[in-house]
């Protein structure tokens, strides 16, 4: 049974990745190093980044799924980035559904580079309770949330705040996110965390044009999980994940990220596979207006 589940996850992951490659020309390079953690890197002013962030899993007791968050990230100016996420998922033996949207804004209050750079993050989400995109873990989220059926009609309207702290040093990025989420219904505040670090394989660009130069690749890792609720704060009764990340930024092309993700306790799903394909359109509105 376990072998079947692993094979199903692999099959879904490969098929989804191939589907992403198939739409290569339609997708346009991005800068995000992580799947869950945010760094202080803002989108360049006027640029639009389009990314498909997917996660595939086969939760015990549930059906294998692939959930994708389609991300549109726009640099409003040098210190303000706005994003829209459209979430959807396919669950085997169930259906393919649109599960909702998220709107977020990131603001960088300090205008210069410091040892630790804070960014303030505000998000509103309107999602089906069965959404499995797993862009954060908060409160007492567990693997049970991954087996909710697509047909579940319950809607969640939530506001989310994040304090993003991030540092760049000698090629390394180290980022820490503290998450506070509040359901706009009668539920209490939920908390979570995400930590990430990454580094390119080379710290100096080669003089020749190349797709496979070491500077185009980066390795990293993320650690994220829940911190309980206001009245039950802590690391227990929630899920935690660790995930190595491999990134490939193709010059003048898309960026590709892979991340096998491992659950760290019995509340976590044992294995998830994340992958992302993204591209950045320079000076989007100028292009649309035909002024370039």
């Amino acid at each position, binding site marked *: 049974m376990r072998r079947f589940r692993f094979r199903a996850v692999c099959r879904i992951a490969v098929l989804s990745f191939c589907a992403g490659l198939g739409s290569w020309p339609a997708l346009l*390079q991005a*800068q995000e190093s992580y799947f869950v953690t945010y*760094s202080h*890197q*803002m989108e*360049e*002013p*006027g*640029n639009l980044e389009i990314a498909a962030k997917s996660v595939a899993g086969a939760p015990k007791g549930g059906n294998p799924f692939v959930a994708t968050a389609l991300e549109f990230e726009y*640099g409003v*100016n*040098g*210190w303000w980035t706005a994003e829209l996420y459209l979430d959807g998922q396919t669950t085997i033996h169930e259906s393919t559904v649109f599960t909702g949207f998220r709107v977020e804004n990131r603001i*960088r209050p300090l*205008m*210069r*580079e410091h040892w630790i750079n804070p960014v303030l993050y505000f998000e509103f989400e309107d999602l089906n309770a069965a959404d499995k995109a797993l862009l954060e873990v908060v409160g007492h989220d567990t693997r049970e949330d991954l087996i909710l059926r697509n047909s579940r009609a319950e809607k969640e309207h939530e506001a989310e705040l994040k304090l993003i702290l991030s540092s*760049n040093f*000698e*090629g390394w*990025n180290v980022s820490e996110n503290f998450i506070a989420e509040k359901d706009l219904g009668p539920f209490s505040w939920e908390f979570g965390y995400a930590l990430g670090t990454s580094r*390119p394989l080379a*710290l*100096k*660009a*080669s*003089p*020749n*044009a190349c797709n496979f130069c070491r*500077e185009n690749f980066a390795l990293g890792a993320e650690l994220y999980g829940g911190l309980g609720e206001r009245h039950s704060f802590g690391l227990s009764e929630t899920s935690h994940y660790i995930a190595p990340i491999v990134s490939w930024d193709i*010059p*003048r092309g898309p960026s590709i990220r892979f991340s096998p993700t491992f659950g760290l306790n019995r509340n976590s799903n044992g294995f998830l596979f994340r992958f992302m394909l993204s591209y950045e359109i*320079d*000076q989007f*509105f*100028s292009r649309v*207006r035909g*002024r*370039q």
Partner: protein
Amino acid sequence: MKLTAVITCLLLGGMAFAGAGDGSWLRKVSEKDRARLNPLANDPDAIAAGAKIYAEHCAPCHGDNAEGKMQGRHYRPNLHSRRVKEATAGELFWLLTNGSLRNGMPSWSRFPKLERWQVVTYVKSLH
């Protein structure tokens, strides 16, 4: 009286903001950063590598020939200008690292130091 004070503040604020787009970032650079030497100044590959990074990340705003261009209502600076020519390598490195966020110049601190120095070497080679 209050109205006059508000208008004065707005005008002064506007002037300060306009000034920021006119090389005022140079005043923010510390003496230590200004005097920083380019470790790749004599690296024969640095110009080509810098040109490569420039073409991908800088040219969309500053133009393929680094001559600057209009984008919407904003003018993106000409890197052949006298100000850039007279700027020290350390000042340009500071600008790449910190950006000038209020004026649309992003921070490129995500690039490793040596890559930023490669871009500085390329920009200096334009003069």
